[in-house]
């Protein structure tokens, strides 16, 4: 496929690896924030290909994984309200909340439908005028503008039965919270490519400037990740900390103006709850009062029970990068992709699922 296969060529990967091996002298720890990057890294065995001087740790960049039980419980409570159809991205279905999952709610009679796009949810709303369609707004800055667009489309079409339960999260504030916690010393950040396609590379500048951590925005293919690591090593070894873009075909420093405009028109920042990190100021999005009639939290009386966490699950610590799946007593034994205990095993982008699938971490 054009612009995919070219970025997987092994002879070019060899060149980048050879340069990384030659240039890397200082022991460093780099974090890949994004779950999509985690998958590429595990799929190609990049951790094993890199020299011993480079440690890669996974960050909290998996929207399904970081959704707190309190929010998942709301989605399940919403599915129990008569006349409500829940439309959601597929990965959400199997995530265990405090007492059940959406899949179990569906088995119990709730109308829960998997969609590929917010456009599909709009279609369901159009086809079912006597029902209320609530779309679960999950995702970072990459996804939030698409949900904003869907709300504006619903307004344009005069749809009166389309709602969004916004659980959207913003990336720069949570990285700040992670760095401020002081739990983890990082020497470089692989910045998320498709979040940056929307917000640009400028929102990462505070990390390079205030924390002295080199930042490189990466794409999602093998060569993208290796080029990003090579650029991070280069910054470390020359004593620099700045924001660079490796993924230049997809990201511009200023981001996507129209997407940012629509996101800002529909949503405003609010505090959000992150699994493993608790409340992070300004890291969530809620619908602006002008669009309140599309807000599921405003339109329905959602009353979940107080949230509970599964015993023994360390997803929270894994998401903060302070523990790995291999540190978890449940990993691969009680908790598997067939029977997941925590969200990092459910989402295909979760560290636990990627470790299980590609055999990394099982070695102990």
């Amino acid at each position, binding site marked *: *496929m054009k*612009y995919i296969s070219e970025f997987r060529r092994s002879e*070019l990967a060899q060149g980048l690896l*050879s340069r990384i091996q030659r240039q890397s002298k200082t022991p460093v720890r780099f974090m890949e924030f994004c779950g999509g990057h985690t998958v590429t890294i595990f799929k190609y065995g990049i951790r094993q290909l890199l020299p011993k001087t480079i440690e890669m740790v996974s960050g909290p960049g998996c929207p*399904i994984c970081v959704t707190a039980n309190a929010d998942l419980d709301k989605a399940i409570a919403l599915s129990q309200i008569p006349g409500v159809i829940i439309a959601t991205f597929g990965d959400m279905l199997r995530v265990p909340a405090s007492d059940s999952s959406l899949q179990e709610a569906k088995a119990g009679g709730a109308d829960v439908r998997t969609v590929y*796009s917010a456009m599909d949810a709009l279609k369901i709303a159009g086809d079912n005028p006597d029902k209320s369609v609530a779309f679960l707004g999950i995702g970072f800055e990459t996804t939030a503008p698409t949900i904003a*667009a869907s709300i504006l489309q619903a307004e344009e079409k005069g749809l009166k039965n389309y709602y969004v339960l916004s659980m959207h999260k913003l990336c720069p504030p949570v990285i700040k919270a992670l760095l401020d916690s002081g739990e983890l010393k990082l020497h470089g950040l692989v910045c998320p490519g*498709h979040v940056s396609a929307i917000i640009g590379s400028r929102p990462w500048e505070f990390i390079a400037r205030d924390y002295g951590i080199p930042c490189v925005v990466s794409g999602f293919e093998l060569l993208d990740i290796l080029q990003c690591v090579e650029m991070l090593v280069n910054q470390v070894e020359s004593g620099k900390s700045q924001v660079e873009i490796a993924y230049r075909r997809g990201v511009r420093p200023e981001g996507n103006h*129209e*997407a940012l405009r629509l996101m800002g028109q529909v949503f405003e920042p609010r505090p959000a709850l992150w699994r493993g990190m608790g409340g992070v100021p300004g890291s969530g999005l809620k619908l602006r009062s002008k669009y309140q009639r599309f807000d599921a939290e405003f339109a329905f009386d959602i009353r979940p029970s107080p949230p509970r966490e599964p015993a023994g699950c360390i997803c929270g610590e894994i998401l903060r990068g302070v523990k790995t799946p291999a540190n978890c007593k449940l990993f691969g034994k009680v908790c598997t992709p067939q029977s997941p205990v925590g969200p990092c095993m459910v989402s295909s982008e979760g560290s636990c699922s990627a470790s299980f699938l590609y055999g990394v971490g099982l070695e102990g």
Partner: protein
Amino acid sequence: MCLAIPALIKSIEDKEAEAEIGGITRRISLWLTPEAKVGDYVIVHTGYAINILDQKEAEETLKILRQIAQLEED
């Protein structure tokens, strides 16, 4: 979940387009990239084009990677 892939725009009608992704044609939304034209590659996430792929930059990046591979071989 921020998965997005390049697609070639074949035709545009209002704010939607027919786009080819690996030989398959799909209907995508251009709400976030109103400036996209037929013949552009766009990066598609959950049915929405989130950016226009910069083909010149893609070639430039590949050129740099080929140079690195060449230099490392020598």
